[in-house]
């Protein structure tokens, strides 16, 4: 049977690839009995959501801030020099 150390690693791996069925079953079984690993799994899902939401409108903060005209021209100038 998997230990928490193995299960936590498998949980992480399951977020990146499809695990073999016997691993999935073992994880599910372990999670039914282990609230720590169950919590760990929920937190990984949350981390993924956080990462995915790092550009929402709530992040943009200072809504009246704009890139200065000087900065815009400077950036365009730099971009032109590339091409």
């Amino acid at each position, binding site marked *: 049977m998997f230990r*928490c*150390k193995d299960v936590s690693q498998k949980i*992480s791996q399951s977020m990146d690839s499809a695990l073999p069925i016997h691993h999935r079953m073992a994880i599910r079984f372990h999670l039914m009995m282990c609230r720590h690993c169950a919590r760990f799994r929920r937190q990984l899902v949350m981390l993924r959501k*956080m*990462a995915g939401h*790092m550009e929402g409108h709530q992040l*943009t903060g200072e809504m009246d801030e704009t*890139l200065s005209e000087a*900065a*815009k021209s400077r950036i365009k100038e730099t971009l032109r020099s590339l091409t």
Partner: protein
Amino acid sequence: MENPPKLDAEAWVEQYGDALFRFAIARVKDRDIAEDLVQEAFLAAVKSQEHFQGKSSEKTWLFGILKHKIIDHYRKSKTMVHVQDYTDDLDSMDAFFNAKGGWNAPPTHWSGNPGTAYETREFLDHFYHCLSGLPKRTAEAFTHREIDGLSTGEICKRLDITASNCWVILFRARMLLRKCLEMAGIQPSSKASE
């Protein structure tokens, strides 16, 4: 694969410049640095535009690049939350578990509504700082995976590592991130903490 349409870099500046700048300044709190980061992001975008496959919107793609630049900036500055560096093997995860393979310090309950946690500024600031405090390659793997949405196969290629190495790095990134957030005493959403 067919070629993506040619992108108009100068039009980007008009169209997305302000939004990117607002995003950057909210994170770094400094106009000059924010401007530089936006410029760097545009430059990187032009140089890597063949990687833009139209899977995401132009805007999302540009924000993704800017996020990398911000994280790099945090990493270079000394004000970050420091997370101890770890080597690449699984043994380095031993600190998290006891000899029997159980949790040394089990994950604690994160109060607040998980659905709204990531919407609070404070929380996202913690997230950024924790991410930028990770070892470089660990943070790169995580941002490639969770922010850019690359597959582990693509990450392996970019970082020139094996698949099993990639899983280990991502595992470590997640372990360290959640630990760092926990240590920062996250209260994901004060208004939803009841």
